[in-house]
């Protein structure tokens, strides 16, 4: 569906996307995970055929976006990072209006709008002005709008940023539904839980470059241990405690507010910590996540 090789985007001297390679297969849900400014949105805009690349090769649905922009966009669904719904139209009005830009007859748009509002669980608010909808509803409506042209590829740029946990889960549920129906998804996110939930395969990006690629489970296996013990000793005592713990576990990460000890058995680590006479103010054992992968790869956390 998408093939990028050495894909590059420069804004003046600044390199926003620095020679990335990836492919997306039909029916797959593929993710770009990285912090703010990593170049995710810029990549999405190039794939979405609204921004010309500065270098490298790119084909989307078998076509070069430089030559076939309108033809590619006719078959994409795009959920941009920032909603750009028409707040003065109703939910239904937004879907119908948008469908027209694809050359879909108004009557077909109206019929699809009804189905898509159902899908987005917005049937009851179909005739409400968009300005009156909650953030989560707007986001679902944006997804419905992106489906109005029955796209072969759906691209979502940070689909749940800014939503409360409940709204996120409703939205994820809708995206699962699409995945089950075989829709190809490309998702960007800076939430590791979202990447774990939605992506079968992902690339970790930072500063416009790909740091690693694989399924969430593979990445965790490759770059982290099975479990992590999180220990808090108080801000000014983490460093000192970490020195005592140097030999414990597979690997240590010292963050400003806590020390992370990576190991296959987290409970055993807690025992060793106690055995060395350390008393963390709080401690917990959890499974490794993509957050730990990112920390390992870049030395930073995803959300600063």
């Amino acid at each position, binding site marked *: 569906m998408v093939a990028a090789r050495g894909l590059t985007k420069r804004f003046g001297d600044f390199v926003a996307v620095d020679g990335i390679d990836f492919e997306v297969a039909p029916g797959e849900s593929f993710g770009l995970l990285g912090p703010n400014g990593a170049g995710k949105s810029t990549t999405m805009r190039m794939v979405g055929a609204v921004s*010309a690349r500065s270098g490298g090769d790119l084909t989307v*649905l*078998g076509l070069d976006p430089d030559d076939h922009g*309108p*033809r590619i966009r*006719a078959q994409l669904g795009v959920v*941009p990072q920032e909603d750009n719904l028409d707040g003065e139209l109703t939910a239904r009005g937004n879907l119908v209006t948008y469908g027209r*830009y694809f050359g879909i007859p108004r009557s077909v748009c109206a019929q699809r709008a009804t189905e898509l509002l159902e899908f987005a669980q917005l049937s009851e608010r179909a005739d409400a002005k968009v300005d009156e909808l909650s953030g989560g509803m707007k986001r679902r409506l944006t997804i419905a709008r992106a489906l109005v042209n029955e796209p072969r590829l759906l691209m979502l740029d940070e689909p749940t940023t800014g939503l409360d946990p409940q709204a996120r889960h409703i939205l994820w549920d809708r995206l699962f539904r699409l995945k089950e129906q075989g829709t190809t998804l490309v998702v960007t996110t800076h939430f590791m839980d979202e990447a774990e939930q939605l992506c079968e395969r992902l690339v970790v990006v930072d500063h416009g470059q790909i740091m690693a690629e694989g399924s969430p489970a593979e990445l965790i296996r490759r770059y982290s241990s099975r479990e992590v013990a999180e220990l808090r000793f108080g801000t000014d005592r983490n460093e000192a405690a970490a020195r005592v713990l140097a030999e414990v576990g597979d690997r240590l990460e010292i963050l400003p507010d806590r020390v992370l000890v990576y190991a296959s058995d987290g409970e055993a680590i807690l025992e060793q910590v106690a055995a060395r006479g350390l008393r963390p103010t709080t401690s917990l054992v959890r499974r490794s996540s993509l957050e730990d992968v990112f920390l390992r790869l870049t030395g930073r956390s995803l959300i600063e």
Partner: protein
Amino acid sequence: MSTTTLPDGAAPEAPVRRLGAWYVAEYRLRAMKAYGWTIVVGGLGSPLLYLLGLGMGLATFIDTPVASGPHGPVDYVVFVAPALLVTAAISVATEEFTYVIMEGFRWRKLFWGVNATPVEPSQLAGGIVIAVLVRMLFTTVAYAVLALAFGALGHPWTVLVLPFVGILGGLAFGLPLMAYSAGLTEDKGQFAIVQRFIFTPMFLFSGTFYPLSTLPGWLHWIGWVSPLWHATQLGRVISYGESEPGWLIAVHVVVLVGLIVGGWLAVRRRFTRRLRA
């Protein structure tokens, strides 16, 4: 055409390639319904007020004729009617090519939504212009018909031509303004400045209410750079046969067409640059 190289199932974008601008125009015209009332009241009310006020009121104080056609002096209202009609078209332009553009790029980001569809930036810009043309046509036709009713046209048949002169003036002012708006990333009150320091002086000093030649020479340049003056003079030539040398009529046409073409090229470039960064 490279249709043979398309992968299976690739949807044709042909209808959008041809009709993209019309889809945008359709959307804009529907959006105008939200302020349709203002359009109708403004479109009918302002000619009524001006033609009544200037034609019946002010004109009674003017003893010296300000203009004359081939058959002698014409009424004051006949002299001002073309200028007022062109001004009405330009007013539409100042409303539609400023805030609507800022809203689309920045405030409500609607253009970015359109941008993700097969519609190209130049089609988006074209669709907006088409919708404004429709609104201008409504306004200028209403003006011409009311002017006819008030006896403010030299020849009745010019009711069919003057609306298009108004549109020429409206676009000659409007398209460069649209290009300017498309380049703005922030609203720092620029549109109020355009209104106060460009539109208003132009309205007052373009030979609107008295011939440009009555002004001191050092103010004539305002008329010469003003699409309002050029379109108004064309309108006067058409309406009552104002005696204008042939070369000057050619200048009017060239300036208006030049501003329209140059403005449109700038609009296209700015829309494409901005949406395709």
